[in-house]
């Protein structure tokens, strides 16, 4: 009997350790980014790193200013947000409120399908469709632009925005809607005067998580934005994002060089940005349940 109790105790300890492991892993990620990234700041001041306007990591002497990369990420993200937020919310409203049963299931599967396509495949398709289209339509010297990145990233943010916003709309209490109908409102009036406002914080969370995904996205954006590490000159010019810089340059650095440390320091910036975004999104998701 005590043997069995011992077994119970061991298993409980084991599953608790597994739970604690997730805390450990997140801490390890941060510690190891910090361990490698912080060493850049022996030679470069943090302020110069964040606000420096030139990124020439391999020239002599090197420049490690990531402002152009931050602005590149922001520009591409902003473009993606402008496209994805209205489309995503509209699609979520249609799926949650308007589409009849069978259509609804098909549309939800379609959105899941989009979420499943690997980013490198989307990047490849972007290279052969969106990039030449931008070059021809806007007569730019190259189609590899921030705009191409924004379009692709919008599609990568859409599944997150649609599915979480749809959840939020779906969980609006039935009584709210019935109240509106009873007052003589049409279905559409009910949607935009009652259902959407009631789901607002869930929709905000959906948007935040979508944006978090966009900022962290790497491969697709690296393949279509042209990767010019200069201050962004607009949507129709090439840009370089934080993520693409790390992915493109890490292979060529010498381990232990300032360049290597600088790429880890970019990792710290990315980690902190997504950390904050996820925390805010979580707060909004929780407010919904209250």
């Amino acid at each position, binding site marked *: 009997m005590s043997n069995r109790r011992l077994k119970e105790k061991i298993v409980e300890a084991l599953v608790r350790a597994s739970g604690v492991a997730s805390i450990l892993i997140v801490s390890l990620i941060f510690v190891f980014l910090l361990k490698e990234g912080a060493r850049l700041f022996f030679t470069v001041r943090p302020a110069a790193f964040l606000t420096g306007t030139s990124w020439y990591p391999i020239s002599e002497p090197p420049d490690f200013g990531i402002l152009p990369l931050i602005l590149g990420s922001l520009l591409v993200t902003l473009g993606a947000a402008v496209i994805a937020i209205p489309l995503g919310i509209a699609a979520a409203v249609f799926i949650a409120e308007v589409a009849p049963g069978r259509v609804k299931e098909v549309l939800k599967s379609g959105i899941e399908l989009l979420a499943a396509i690997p980013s490198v495949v989307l990047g490849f398709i972007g*290279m052969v469709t969106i990039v030449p289209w931008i070059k021809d339509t806007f007569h730019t010297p190259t189609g590899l632009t921030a705009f191409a990145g924004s379009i692709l990233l919008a599609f990568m943010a859409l599944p997150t925005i649609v599915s979480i916003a749809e959840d939020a709309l779906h969980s609006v209490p039935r009584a709210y809607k019935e109240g509106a109908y009873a007052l003589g409102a049409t279905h559409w009036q009910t949607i935009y005067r009652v259902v959407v406002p009631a789901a607002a914080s869930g929709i905000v969370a959906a948007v935040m998580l979508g944006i978090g995904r966009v900022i962290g996205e790497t491969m697709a954006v690296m393949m279509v934005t042209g990767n010019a590490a200069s201050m962004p000159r607009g949507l129709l010019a090439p840009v370089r994002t934080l993520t693409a810089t790390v992915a493109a340059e890490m292979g060529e650095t010498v381990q232990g060089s300032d360049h290597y440390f600088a790429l880890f320091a970019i990792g710290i910036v990315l980690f902190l940005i997504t950390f904050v975004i996820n925390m805010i999104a979580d707060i909004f998701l929780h407010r919904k349940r209250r």
Partner: protein
Amino acid sequence: MTPKLTQRIAFSALFLITAAVIVPVLTVIVIIIREGAPAMTWEFLTQMPRSGMRAGGILPAIVGTFYLVLGAVLFALPLGLFAAIYMSEYSKDNWLTRLIRLAIINLAGVPSVVFGLFGLALFVGFFKFGASIFSGALTLGVMILPVIITSSREALGAVPKSFREVSISLGATKLQTIKYAVLPHALPGILTGTILGIGRAAGETAPILFTVAAFYLPRLPESVFDQVMALPYHLYVLSTQVPNVDAKVRYGTALVLLAIVLLMNLVAILIRSYYRSRKKW
């Protein structure tokens, strides 16, 4: 304008927007199937690449992706399932539980390239596993951990409380209850989450860039400490690093990768709908 007319206009607009989201997805899939299908020959799937990846097959990339995914699941499934069991069956609502929940949310939001940096610093550098299948699989495993934990936890949470109460009242211990009264009913959900994790691990590129992926390595790995080629990285290389590649080879590689990922998702959807229709409570 009457409210009825406004509604009709609004709904039509919503429908058009939703179509604008869905149609490109289907278009992408159709393009890849149409352009990639001519490349699908037995040689393409079973031979080494030749002439600087411009000819021959993609076997090493397929095998590499298979090993990486297998390793990632072997690491993430036990750890993720145990963590989910802890959260759903053992933990009380205290600071530790909240901290674990917070950690999982953040883990899910970490950019894929940051996982790559983490894998490089910890597995490749600190533990000295080198750029190897072992390092890459662990990195991918860490990445899919939140997917597995979240879906397993949901599956466990969906098992009615009464199942546990009955089992305990019959004299079963907690462990027996979990093993015989809870886990079997949560299995489909856990399986679905695992398969989605597999799909994600198979398709990600950034985490394997610095931890395992080989640019061009036309042979099969002999140990877990070898580098390998992998399908997503191979597609990236073919699309951006190698000039004058026959478009067929690119589309063919994209098709194989897409087929694997979509097949995983299809299986997950089928499992889910099969068990949902059979659910008795």
